[in-house]
């Protein structure tokens, strides 16, 4: 009885530790990104707010100059009864004025809007477009300090956002895989796993060693990194090629690359106490009672999600965004989809930009939804890239094996 309680306690401690790691890695990164963006918003507001008023005044003076000029040089100097000549003269003056307006707008003047350009929400979205490298460009720094600060801000912010992307993308990929396994492949159905496990075990026994190599290699990798209770991203950096562990068979190279984007199978850091700490505890990884359970979680991470599902998710997300933005901005469906695509692929032309409703001085729900849409969308794209890359690697490995087998056949 006390032994059981102790096991429970250790499990509880593990859960708490996992929760803490989760908070520090994922939630911490999200909070860091948001805080960085808010700081950037205040900074750019302080830097750029002054210059905006200046250019506003300048355009006002320009307009007054023009009307004065018209009075002096057109109405007074020209013969008033020659209508066409006067109109022509006025037309050329207006054209000059128009080019001036165009240039001023390109320099960042925003004539039509009554509210100031650099409010909190617009500053926030500006900082967000900098660190996500979308860069709409409808708002851009005009002062020298603004430019310098933007450069520095981008240099510091982009790695941060990259961290956010890999972290959250991986997390989402893991969750999505679990959901996909549970719902679409019916992994949650009772009896399914046992049957499947039995079948697979049979296959493993029958097939060549290369299918079995993978779990063995994984297991063999961990003694090299005994303190796997630090954040798992640290131990196996995602998206990187890893130097092969000693004793790793050279042949299963593609296998390693298949497993590349995903972290070590969850049972290795979640439900088990690290062997160093819990020396009194028997490491109970492969105990027969829990093997089925662990097999399920293991299995959920090894399945690959088909590309079509990823594409469907992305298209659905874009359609959802196009609906929302179309409702706010009165864009038609194509324009909304175009805007969402251009934003999420981080191209960011800036010909369609959420307007008055999002960039108000007050903080409204639409602003929050817009920034959430962007941040979540980027993470979703990263997730889909993760999954798709995995799937493509899988296909590629299969193709390679098939070709190899074909070559062996010929000989």
């Amino acid at each position, binding site marked *: 009885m006390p032994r059981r309680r102790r096991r429970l306690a250790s499990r509880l401690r593990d859960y708490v530790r996992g929760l803490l790691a989760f908070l520090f890695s994922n939630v911490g990164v999200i909070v860091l990104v948001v805080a960085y963006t808010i700081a950037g918003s205040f900074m750019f507001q302080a830097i750029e707010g002054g210059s905006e008023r200046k250019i506003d005044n300048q355009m006002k003076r320009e307009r007054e100059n023009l009307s004065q000029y018209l009075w002096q040089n057109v109405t007074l100097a020209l013969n008033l009864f020659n209508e066409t000549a*006067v109109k022509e003269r006025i*037309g050329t003056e207006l054209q000059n004025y128009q080019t001036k307006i*165009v240039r001023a707008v390109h320099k960042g003047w925003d004539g039509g809007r009554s509210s100031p350009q650099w409010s909190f929400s617009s500053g926030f979205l500006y900082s967000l477009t900098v660190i996500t490298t979308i860069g709409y460009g409808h708002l851009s720094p005009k002062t020298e300090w603004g430019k310098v600060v933007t450069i520095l801000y*981008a240099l510091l912010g982009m790695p941060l956002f990259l961290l956010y992307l890999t972290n959250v993308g991986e997390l989402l990929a893991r969750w999505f895989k679990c959901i996909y396994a549970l719902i679409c492949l019916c992994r949650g159905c009772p009896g399914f796993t046992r049957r499947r496990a039995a079948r697979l075990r049979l296959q493993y026994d029958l097939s060549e060693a290369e299918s079995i190599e993978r779990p063995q290699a994984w297991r063999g990798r961990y003694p090299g990194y005994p303190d796997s209770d630090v954040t798992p991203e*640290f131990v196996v950096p995602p998206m990187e090629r890893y130097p092969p562990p000693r004793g790793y068979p050279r042949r299963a190279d593609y296998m390693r690359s298949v497993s590349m984007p995903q972290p070590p199978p969850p049972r290795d850091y979640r439900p088990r106490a690290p062997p160093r700490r819990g020396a009194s505890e028997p490491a109970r990884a492969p105990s027969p009672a829990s093997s089925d359970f662990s097999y399920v979680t293991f299995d959920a991470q090894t399945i690959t999600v088909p590309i079509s599902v990823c594409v469907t998710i992305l298209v659905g997300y874009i359609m959802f965004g196009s609906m929302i933005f179309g409702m706010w901005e009165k864009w038609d469906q194509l324009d909304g989809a175009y805007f969402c695509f251009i934003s999420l692929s981080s*191209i960011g032309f800036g*010909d369609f930009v959420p307007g008055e409703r999002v960039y108000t001085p007050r903080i409204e729900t639409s602003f929050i939804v817009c920034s959430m849409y962007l941040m979540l969308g980027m993470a979703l794209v990263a997730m889909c890239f993760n999954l798709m890359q995995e799937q493509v690697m899988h296909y590629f490995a299969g193709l390679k094996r098939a070709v190899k087998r074909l070559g062996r056949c010929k000989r």
Partner: protein
Amino acid sequence: MERHHPLSASFHGSMRSRDSSSTVGSDAREKIKDCFRKFIAFMFTQVGVGALVVCYAILGAAGFMHIEKDNPDEQLEHVRQLRKNCAETLWNITITDNLFNETSWVFKVNEVLKVFQNNITAAIHTGYNGRAAEDIWSFPAALMYSLSVFTMIGYGNIVPKTVWGKIGTIAYACFGIPIYVLYFCNMGKVLAQTFKWLYITAHECSRRDDTLFEDGEMQPVKRKITVPSTACLWVISFYILTGTIMFGAWEKWNYLDSTYFCVISLCKIGFGDFVPGANIVDSAGGSHLKLVINFIYVLLGMGLVAMCYNLMCEDVRVKVRELREDLRNCLDDITLKITVCMNDTKYYHHQKNSRNVK
């Protein structure tokens, strides 16, 4: 020109390694065959990907030019109408008003001008540019546009107006971005290898001099050399400096603006408030050469960024590993000390107790 350099360098590297590894039984013909095979592989992977990217850009430029050029420009017509209306109202004011009351005339004209100005600003926000579609979509500009689509820079100084242009852009990006990512990874790998080889050669040269002077022979300590991050940063900043000077001279930007442009481009942010194409189109003479250089600058810069990313990742990984080892050593040390201390105190207590007992 740029392509040639990594090629020769990587050749040297591979040849050297092969020579050192297999000295026995190396047939000349075998070597040549191997060399040839490697050359073909190189052509197909690195040069092939580069050529693919360039071809894709040219293809896209031609396509977008074709789609967008014969777009009847309603915007231009609309603005012309606005101007006409404004002139009309001004004339009306002049006719109807008392001409000798200057302040009221000026006031009214000011009102009209304000309305006109707001209309123009609204037109600009919906895409009016002051130029006709034929002027905008010249071939160099279209090339720059397709580059900005698939590299995800997205300057946005020229944008598609037609429905088919928008759909085409989406499709073009869907296929172009993977190709570009391929190019990015490939170029990054090649450049990283080249740079690493260069760095290691330079490093060994300098160290050999030192050791020769010291004790006449090299130390057998064979550590794996990683290129430090600072070297990457130097390369990147040198590249940006080159770009700064180049664009500053061509576009008459000041140095801050031109640095800003280079950083914003290489970071793929691409605000589009400074775009070299805009001015290049105006000056017809020699624009193509400048544009091609610009194109290559951006494309090569992306490769360099990829290289630095690769190298810095490696460096950071090594540093983290070292740090962790250090930390572990430190922890072990501390635990050792603590246990020793505990033992000491235990021993002390024990002695004390025994003395007390005594």
